[in-house]
């Protein structure tokens, strides 16, 4: 489906949702780019576009917190839907109040994002393209020795400015008290942050959570291939627990423990 047709159909779908919902979160053309915007019933939708994309689930989380009674629609890609599913599992988003207006990414977009599933389950607009089955960056690292991999990551993480962009832009990072801001885990006053505390603490928190949207990598000013480590963890999580982040609301994250009856006082 060409971009023009996709946009026309998406705008029609949003217009339809606006007959039921209080608003729809989608991208609006702005100064040569796009920004997340809440379209309301009666608004002109001619400047509703789909690129460059932003982490919509993160913003929907914010809007849902501000207006818990509101019924909101969201124009969502595959990754947006996956993020919403992970947020819903952790009680951050109430999916009963959300209407997902899913649209498909093109094969080119899927390749650029190295995306395994470039379409949402709630697909309303566009045709599902084939995803990338194996992350090529992970394949490159797999053939390295442990020493080579250590050297690779040491060099990459050394570029870090500690801007917190990867944390700020991650749709599944919602904790108001963040481990990455704790002196205990990430020593302050040092740039680059001491290896490997910042990045591996973040990676640990991405287990069962990262939905491979690539927003962290895209916003990293130092071009660190952050999600390559998360992809390795994703692979291990699937193998060890049969769990895939963002696949279903009913799948319980493997690292969420129920303390009652499992630990001794």
């Amino acid at each position, binding site marked *: 489906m060409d971009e023009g047709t996709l946009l026309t159909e998406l705008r029609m779908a949003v217009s339809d949702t606006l007959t039921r919902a*209080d*608003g729809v*979160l989608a991208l609006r053309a*702005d*100064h*040569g*780019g*796009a*920004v*997340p*915007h*809440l379209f*309301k019933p009666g608004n002109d939708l001619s400047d509703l576009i789909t690129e*460059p994309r*932003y982490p919509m689930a993160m*913003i929907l989380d*914010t*809007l849902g917190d*501000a*207006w818990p009674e*509101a019924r909101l629609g969201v124009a969502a890609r595959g990754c947006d839907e996956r993020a919403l599913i992970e947020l819903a599992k952790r009680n951050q988003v109430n999916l009963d109040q959300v209407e997902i207006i899913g649209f498909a990414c093109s094969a080119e977009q899927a390749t650029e994002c190295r995306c395994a599933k470039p379409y949402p389950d709630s697909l309303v607009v566009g045709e599902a393209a084939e995803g990338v089955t194996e992350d090529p960056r992970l394949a490159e690292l797999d053939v390295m020795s442990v020493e080579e991999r250590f050297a690779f990551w040491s060099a990459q993480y050394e570029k870090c*400015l*500690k*801007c*917190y*962009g990867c944390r*700020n*832009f991650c749709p599944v990072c919602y904790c108001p008290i963040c481990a990455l801001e704790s002196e205990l885990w990430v020593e302050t006053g040092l740039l680059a942050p001491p290896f490997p505390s910042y990045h591996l603490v973040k990676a640990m928190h991405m287990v069962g959570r990262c939905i491979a949207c690539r927003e962290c990598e*895209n*916003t*990293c*000013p130092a071009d660190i291939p952050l999600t390559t480590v998360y992809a390795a963890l994703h692979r291990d999580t699937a193998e060890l627990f049969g769990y895939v982040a963002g696949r279903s609301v009913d799948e319980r994250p493997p690292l969420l423990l129920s303390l009652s009856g499992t630990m001794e006082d």
Partner: protein
Amino acid sequence: MEYKNVLTVCPYCGAGCTLYLQVLDGKVIGVLPAKQHVISEGALCIKGWNAAAFVHHEDRVTQPMARRNGRLEPIRWDEALDLVAGRLAETRQAHGPDAIGFLASAKVTNEENYLFQKFARAVIGTNNVDHCARL
């Protein structure tokens, strides 16, 4: 129920990254990077990510105040202007123009900074003009 994003330039360094201020029901709640910006390319530094923190900050001065008896007390604008003008004139008279230093700001407009340094140089007569980013 209003949510929109407003493009602006980061008030900190000279790189001039543009960013979006997230505005929820009339209040600035955070920022988003501007993905289309040719300089920043959708990235921000830690200052940029926190650029909106001062907008609604509780510590922002919202009225003129004077320190009296060790405490800051709100005063009227005309009283404040008289106080400042008087003390600047006194200091300049007693100790010379270079006894006064001027600290400009990245969070005001270019026009306001221009007036500020013009006041320092042409009215007070000192070159002691510096900038908050150098602190």
